[in-house]
């Protein structure tokens, strides 16, 4: 019973969730965390964190503060703080952020730029 009190929601403070069967073709912008389990094509611009879960597929340019990728991303990522490529993720595109973490098992193809000035 105690386990039910802490529900499966893995991200605290994530108000926006794009579910696994959702396909968005266009632009997403906002000031809050965004969790993507579905597909997004176009552009994503956030002032907070973007979480691409393992079922998430993104074909978009991303501009956020933090990015955490467990799924697939095709497009350029520009983060003002941190980009984290988890194990089993697939990322194709250029990454620009002051801090970039690539875990063992991650598949990545593209350029990395950690120049702090260019991050913003």
């Amino acid at each position: 019973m105690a386990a039910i009190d802490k529900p499966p929601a893995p991200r605290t403070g994530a108000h926006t969730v794009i579910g696994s069967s959702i396909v968005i073709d266009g632009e997403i912008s906002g000031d809050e965390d965004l969790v993507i389990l579905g597909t997004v094509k176009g552009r994503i611009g956030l002032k907070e964190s973007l979480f691409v879960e393992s079922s998430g597929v993104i074909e978009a340019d991303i501009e956020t503060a933090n990015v955490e990728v467990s799924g697939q991303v095709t497009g350029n990522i520009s983060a003002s703080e941190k980009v984290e490529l988890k194990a089993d993720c697939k990322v194709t595109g250029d990454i620009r952020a002051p801090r970039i973490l690539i875990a063992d098992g991650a598949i990545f193809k593209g350029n990395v730029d950690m120049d702090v000035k260019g991050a913003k």
Partner: protein
Amino acid sequence: MATMDGSTIIGESILINGNLNGDEDLTVRGRVEGTVTLTKTLVVEPTGVVKAEVQVKNCVIAGAVVGNVTASESVEITKEGRMIGDISAPRVIIVDGASFRGRIDMGEFEVREGERPERTLSARAAPRPALTTRRPSPAPAPKAEAAEKASAPRPPEPPVPAALGGAKKKVIVRRK
């Protein structure tokens, strides 16, 4: 919030501009512009704004919707809901307090030719004689009394206790 899978939430500060397709419920607390196509339910919460062509199974509007909504089952506009656009759905529910401007199409429905004329005839037959008999008896009587008092107010002699106008005029005469 509890179920991560099978429910999509667009948060308050989020703006989506483009096409949105899916096979699950969608809750909008932010803004969505473009088109929304779902095989399940779209819920527009009080903070939500949808400016889009919407095609869904069910639609619950508690926020603002500008655009045409086509639902295969139902559209409901709650008391906080505001909508401008056309609705096409077999079931349309508009609650007291909701604001809506647009057309509604609930599709084709059968009209039974035998029943309708009977109902209208019987409904017309009942109230009509009642109205004609009631109207002449009470209505002209007070009007005539009032007219008489207005034309000749000075003589205070005729005692009319029932009418308020008569009582007032009596007081005025005594003061003079």
